[in-house]
C-alpha cells in the first residue's frame, strides 16, 4: 500500500513538473522517469509484461527518439502568450466527466468485477488448455486469441517505419526542396520589405 501510494504521488508530481517545465531536455528526461514510475506501478498491478515493455519502449526508445529530435530541433520551449484558461476548462470538464464515470465503476481489485467474471472460463484456464500450459499467459493470449491484434500492431510498426522513412527522406530531385527554398526566399523578401 505504502509503495503504491508513493509511486502514485511521484507520478503525479512528475507529470506536473513536466507540464511546467520549459527546458525540453529536462522534460524528456522526466518523461522517461514518468514511464519508469508507470512501469513500476504496473509491476505492482501484476502486469510484468506491460511493465517491461513500457520501460523499454516508453522510457527507452521514446526518450531516445525525442532526444534525437531535440538535437535537430532545439532544446528550449518559448513561453507562450496564449491564455491557459480554455485548455484548463477543456481538461477540467473532461476530467470531471471521467471522475463522474468512475463513480459506478467496480472498485479497484474487486474480484466480482465484470472484467474478472464475464468470461468463463477465464483466459488463464482456457489458454492452459488451448496452449498446453504455456507458462506466460499474456504471451499466449498475444499469440492466439488476440493474435490478430498483434498482426495489426506489427502493421502499425511497419506503417510508422515507412512513414518515418518517407517523411525524413530528401532527394536532390525532391520538388519539396525547391518549394521550400522558394518560400524561404519569399519570406526573406517579406521580412526585408
Amino acid at each position, binding site marked *: 500500500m505504502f509503495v503504491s501510494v508513493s509511486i502514485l504521488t511521484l507520478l503525479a508530481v512528475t507529470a506536473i513538473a513536466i507540464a511546467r517545465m520549459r527546458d525540453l531536455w529536462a522534460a524528456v528526461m522526466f518523461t522517461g522517469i514518468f514511464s519508469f514510475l508507470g512501469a513500476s506501478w504496473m509491476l505492482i498491478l501484476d502486469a510484468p509484461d506491460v511493465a517491461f515493455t513500457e520501460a523499454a519502449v516508453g522510457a527507452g526508445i521514446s526518450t531516445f527518439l525525442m532526444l534525437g529530435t531535440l538535437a535537430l530541433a532545439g532544446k528550449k520551449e518559448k513561453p507562450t502568450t496564449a491564455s491557459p484558461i480554455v485548455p484548463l476548462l477543456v481538461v477540467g470538464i473532461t476530467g470531471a466527466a471521467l471522475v463522474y464515470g468512475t463513480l*459506478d465503476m467496480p472498485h479497484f481489485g474487486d474480484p466480482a468485477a465484470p472484467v474478472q467474471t464475464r468470461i468463463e472460463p477465464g483466459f488463464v484456464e482456457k489458454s492452459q488448455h488451448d496452449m498446453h500450459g504455456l507458462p506466460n499467459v499474456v504471451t499466449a493470449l498475444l499469440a492466439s486469441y488476440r493474435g*490478430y491484434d498483434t498482426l495489426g500492431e506489427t*502493421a502499425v510498426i*511497419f*506503417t510508422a517505419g515507412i*512513414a518515418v522513412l*518517407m517523411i525524413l527522406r530528401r*532527394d536532390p530531385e525532391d520538388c519539396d526542396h525547391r518549394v*521550400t527554398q522558394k518560400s524561404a526566399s519569399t519570406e526573406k523578401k517579406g521580412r526585408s520589405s
Partner: protein
Amino acid sequence: MIEYLDFHLPVLTIVVPLIAAPLCVLLGARTMAKLLSWVVCWITFGLSVWLVAKVSAVGKISYYLGGWEPPYGIEYAIDPLNAFLMTFISGMGAIVLMYSGPSLSDEVPQSKHYMFYALYLLCMTGLLGMCATGDLFNVFVFLEISSLSTYALISLGKTRRAPLAAFQYLIMGTIGATFLLIGIGLLYQMTGTLNMADIGVQLESYRTAGVVVDGVQGPPHWEGSRTMLVAFAFLTVGLCIKMAVFPLHTWLPNSYTYAPSVVTCFVAATATKVSVYAFIRIVFGIFTPTFAFELLPLDTALWSFSLVGIFVASIAAIYQTNIKRRLAYSSIAQIGYMLLGISMANQHGLTAGIVHMFNHALIKGGLFMAVGCFALRLGSVHLDDWRGAGKTMPWTSLAWATGGLGLIGVPVTCGFISKWLLLTAAMENELYPVAALMLVSSLLAVIYIWQVVEVLYFSPPSEKAKKATEAPLIMLVTTWVVVGATVVFGVWTTWSAGLAGDAARVLLGGGTP
C-alpha cells in the same frame, strides 16, 4: 480452392492489401510497386464484391479470426452495411489509384512513389479493417493503421505546410484515438468483453424496468449508468474528432488542402465515412438507440451541433478562394447532414444518413478528382486561376459542374436522393424547423458551388487557363466514372436506398432485442 476462399473471404479482403504493402516496399521499383498496388486494389475490390454478394445471399457472416471464438478471440461481423462500405472503399481505392498516375508524378517526387503505394494500401487496409471487425479494440488498432498512413500521406504535399497539416492532424487524431481507447476501456470495465455484440448483450443486463409512479410505467432505467454514459461520451467525442464534426473539425481543412490531390481524393471519399460508420455501429450496435437517445439527449445534441456545423462550415466555404479548402469546409458541412440523419434514430433517418454517407463520398470523391485534374493542368487550385477554364478543359469542367449539382442536391443526382430522404425523415419526426433549416443551408451549397461554375464558364480566361489543355485521358475517364456514378445512383435508387434501408433495418432490429 473456391470454398477455401469463400470461407476466408472476410479476412482476405483485409489481409491481401496488408501483405501487398511490404511487397511494394520490397519491390522498390516504381512501376513494379504501381502495378502491384493496382492489381491488389482490384483484387480487394473483387473480393469485397464477392463478400457483398455472399452477405446478401446468406445474411450476416461471423468469421472467427484464427478460429478463436468470441469473446475470447476476435470476430469479423459482416452485415449488409459494412460489406457495402467495404466494397465502396476498395472500389474507390482502386479508381483513385488508377487516376493517380499523372497527378502523382506531378506532385510527389519519383523516389517516394513506392512508399506512397505501400502507405496507400495500408491506409485502405486500416479502413477496411475498421469496417469489418466486430471487436472494439480491433477497431482501435486498425484505426491507427489507417491514421498513421494518412498522416504520412498528407505530409507528402508539395508545400512545407503539408507536414504541418499532417502534424496538426496527428495531434488531433491521436487525441481522438486515445479518447476512443478510454471509452473502450470503460466499456470493458463494465462488461468484461470487447466483442461489440457481446457488449450490447451485457449492457442490456444493466437495464431494469422503469419505476412505476402512480401506476404509470416509467422509462427503463440503467443500473450503474454513469460509467456507461461517460464511456459513450468518450467514444462519441473520439469519433467526432475523426469525423470532423463541427467544433472538432480544425484538422480537416488544412489536411485536405495541403495533401497531394490524390490523397485528398481518397481520404475525403473514405476516411471520415468510416468514422461515421463506426459511430453508427457504436450507437446502434453496442448501445441501443434507447440508451443513446433516451438516457442521453444525444439526438438534440447531435442535431443542434450538426445544424450549427452545417451553417458555419458552409458559410466558411463561401469565403474560401482555395478550391480544395472550399470543398474541405463543404465536407465538414456534409458530415452534419449525415449526423442529422443518424440523430433521428429511426428507420427513415438512419437510411437517409447511410445513403448520404455513400452519396456524399461519391460526390466529394468526384469533385476532388476534378480538382486534381485542374491542379495538374493549371498548376493551381485558386479560384482566380480557374477563370475561363471551361473553354480549355471542357470535360473536367463539366465533371466539376455535374458533381457540384450533386452536392447542391439537384434532382437526378444522388445528392437529391439523400437530401430528399433526410427531408422526409425530418418531416416524419415532426422536426419541421430542422427540415426548413436543412433546405436553407443547402442554398449555401448553391453559392459556393455556383461561384466556381460561373468562374469556369462565364469569365474571361486567366493566363493559366488559356495555356491549359484537357487533363490526361486516364484521369478524365476515372473522374467521369465517379461523377457518372453520382448520376446513376441518382436515377437508379432502388439499389442504393434499398440497401441502406436494409442496413438500417438490421441495425435497428439488431440493437433492440
